[in-house]
């Protein structure tokens, strides 16, 4: 079973995303910010990461840049999931190493389509 780490400071969003991704066949772990996510990744590198941008402690882009420097940190496919929808900001996330990008709000169809684009389904 593929694993997906859901990183978002909103518990509600994590819960919604978890339900959708479990239906798509992923085993889910959750983190509330970039620091927590990094700790998860150091313990067990996931196959996929659904990543919010604006979070306390460490934001999504900083986390992603850090992740890519970790041992095995090139492995996970990262799908951003943020309210940021300015083209320049989206480009910044892709340049940091994201495979796909979801603009909130999302639903199951969008997550499914984007994970398929990222080669995760």
């Amino acid at each position, binding site marked *: 079973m593929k694993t997906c780490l859901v990183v978002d400071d909103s518990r509600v969003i994590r819960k919604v995303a978890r339900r959708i991704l479990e239906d798509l066949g992923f085993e889910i772990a959750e983190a509330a910010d970039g620091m927590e996510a990094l700790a998860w990744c150091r313990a067990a590198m996931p196959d996929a990461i659904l990543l919010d941008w604006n979070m306390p402690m460490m934001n999504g882009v900083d986390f992603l840049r850090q992740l890519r420097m970790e041992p095995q940190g090139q492995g996970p496919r990262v799908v951003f999931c943020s309210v940021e*929808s*300015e*083209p320049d900001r*989206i*480009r910044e996330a*892709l340049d940091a190493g994201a495979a*796909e*990008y*979801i*603009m909130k709000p*999302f639903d199951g*169809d*969008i997550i499914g*389509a*984007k994970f398929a*684009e990222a080669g995760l389904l």
Partner: protein
Amino acid sequence: MNPADIELFVALARARAGLKVDPAKTYLIESRLAPLARREGFAGIAELATALRANRDDKLIWAVVEALAMGETDFFRDRAVFDTFRSEILPTLARLRGAAPIKVWSCACSSGQEAYSLAMIAEEAVGLLPGAQVEIYGSDISERALEKAQSGLYTQFEVQRGLPIRRLLEHFDKVEDNWRLTPRIRQRVRWRRVNLVGDMTAMGQFDVIFCRYVLASMDVPYRRRVLEALSGLLPPDGLLVLGPQETAETITQALQPVPGRAGIYVRNPAFRAAA
């Protein structure tokens, strides 16, 4: 809804556009026609039906038929066929046609996503296929759908279904909360209202015709008519593209499947001779 009204709507959709509307799907009929009734100034669907019976206003009849015909679609729906178009069909036709235009038609394009998906592929192929002239045509039975298609404007929700983020950044501009295809892509597509069960003899020839998810919405006798009319617009090496689960063999002898390519057909050269 009154069963006699439902019967009227179903009969109009069938007679004008060959559409098969299931009279049991009252919610569907209601959700399509209630906004139309309001827009046209009627108190409700019953009043709309009464008006249709009283004076067979052609414009109003078409508005009803178009509302019932509205299809849903996504960018790059069933991605495999677009990959085939990009990596096989387009390069092959570019070689065969040289500098002559390659005409590609999305014949029931609804709000335009299929035609624009093809236009994006054509734009991305410019450097790879020097000299190739790709012309994209989009048509639908619904004026409202075509208006939306022509605007090239899509919601954030629509651009996230089937469209990879890099293509969104490359081919769209953000306009407030929506996304609009760049002028380069919009200029690649020509739009026109076409009723597939109407007279199509003056349409000209097309090298590739996309006709996906249309047949299923049509009444059985019309499926054959549409497929045979479309096959008549193909040159001998032209292709008709149906949905991956749709087949033509069971409907008509006019088309032959391309082996190993689900949903892709060529004209049957023996068909005309036999007919």
